[in-house]
């Protein structure tokens, strides 16, 4: 398998940001009230991710190591601003329903995480495909969660009625608590698969996201999360 398709497969399946790495949980919970919102958010993030990976990979030999985090943040924030304006201009409906979460793509763990761990070390083409793979993986994750919540919460998928009229929608699923419940089931499912794999003695993929605490977050280099865990651990022991 050549390098580019390998990166896409990696992002979509092997290191899927939503289902395997558990990164970017804030938008995952917040915008998945419907499948359309999920796909919109996913594609916006993909666009930012591809562009920022490309630019960061081009600049990787120019940006000095000590200021790389602020530099990455500026690059990502610029692309987020561009995407913000494009959405406002061309899809105002989606722009209104995503609202505050579009500018907040800047602080999405996935983007800074990929910039730090892949784009800043690899040539341009693989970095672009890495961004594309990760972004599409995120889009698939958000869309799946969106479909489940929309189906149970309103009996519709992408705004089309699919369940018979006699179905009484469980409205709580498109409200805030529903997001937590759906994600809880998802993580439980993931745990179950992992436990089964572990019992069979196979290699278990590591979750990198919030479940493992901030220490494992993709942008710990920016926030010094490793320091937190070691010091709180020390405090706990005292």
């Amino acid at each position, binding site marked *: 398998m050549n390098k580019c398709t390998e990166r896409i497969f990696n992002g979509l399946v092997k290191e899927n940001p939503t289902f395997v790495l558990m990164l970017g949980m804030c938008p995952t919970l917040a915008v998945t009230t419907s499948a359309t919102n999920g796909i919109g958010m996913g594609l916006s993030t993909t666009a930012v991710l591809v562009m920022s990976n490309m630019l960061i990979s081009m600049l990787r030999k120019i940006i000095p190591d000590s200021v790389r*985090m602020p530099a990455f943040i500026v690059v990502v924030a610029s692309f987020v*601003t561009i995407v913000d304006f494009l959405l406002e201009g061309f899809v105002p409906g989606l722009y209104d329903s995503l609202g505050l979460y579009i*500018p907040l793509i*800047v602080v999405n763990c996935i983007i800074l995480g990929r910039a730090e761990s892949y784009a800043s070390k690899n040539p341009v083409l693989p970095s672009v495909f890495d961004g594309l793979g990760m972004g599409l993986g995120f889009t698939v994750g958000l869309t799946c969660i969106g479909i489940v919540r929309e189906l149970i919460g309103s009996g519709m998928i992408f705004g089309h009625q699919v369940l018979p009229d006699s179905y009484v929608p469980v409205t709580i699923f498109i*409200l805030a608590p529903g997001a937590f419940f759906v994600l809880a089931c998802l993580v*439980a499912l993931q*745990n179950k698969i992992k436990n089964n794999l572990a019992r069979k003695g196979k290699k278990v993929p590591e979750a990198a996201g919030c479940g493992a605490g901030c220490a494992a977050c993709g942008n710990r280099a920016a926030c010094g999360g490793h320091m*937190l865990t070691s010091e709180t651990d020390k405090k706990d022991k005292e």
Partner: protein
Amino acid sequence: MGEQIQNLLLIAVGSAFVNNVVLSQFLGICPFLGVSKNVKTAAGMGSAVVFVITIASFVTGLIYKFILGNPNIMGGELEYLNTIVFILVIAALVQFVEMVLKKSMPSLYNALGVYLPLITTNCAVLGVALTNVQEGYDILTGVVNGFATAAGFLVSIVLMAGIREKIEHNDITESFQGTPIVLVTAGLMAIAFFGFSGLI
């Protein structure tokens, strides 16, 4: 004057309880799940967030009023720089606050210090700064909104830590141990917080 105070109070209650930052807006989920294992650390994290968000909403409010949204500079058309400027200002501010605390208030630094660097990437901080601008709040209202939002975060993370300390000793299905049960708890807390929606 009385009307203004009433207005501020409404905004404060609204952002602390009704639109709780974690349980209904999903900002700052990472620290909420990651640093809520015991009440003491949760309270430390929560207070650090209160501290930083209050200062950040003041500083970003100033920058917006006098530079980005100022009609005398570039005809007030610099608003498109909001996101870029705010995230950099917040990152720099957190570093700065950390240095000042370390130098002048060592006791406070010992209590909050370890949590400060983590807050840079907490989306709640940027979220509050952007909300203040979008809603057109003046600086005072913005600071009150920021403080109340952060207080909401403090309340929910401390409650969650208290519940988690009890959950530790419960018998939970294998697959639901760890993060899933915490998420279910958060969902139930979110339902409880719906009760506040009648307040305003």
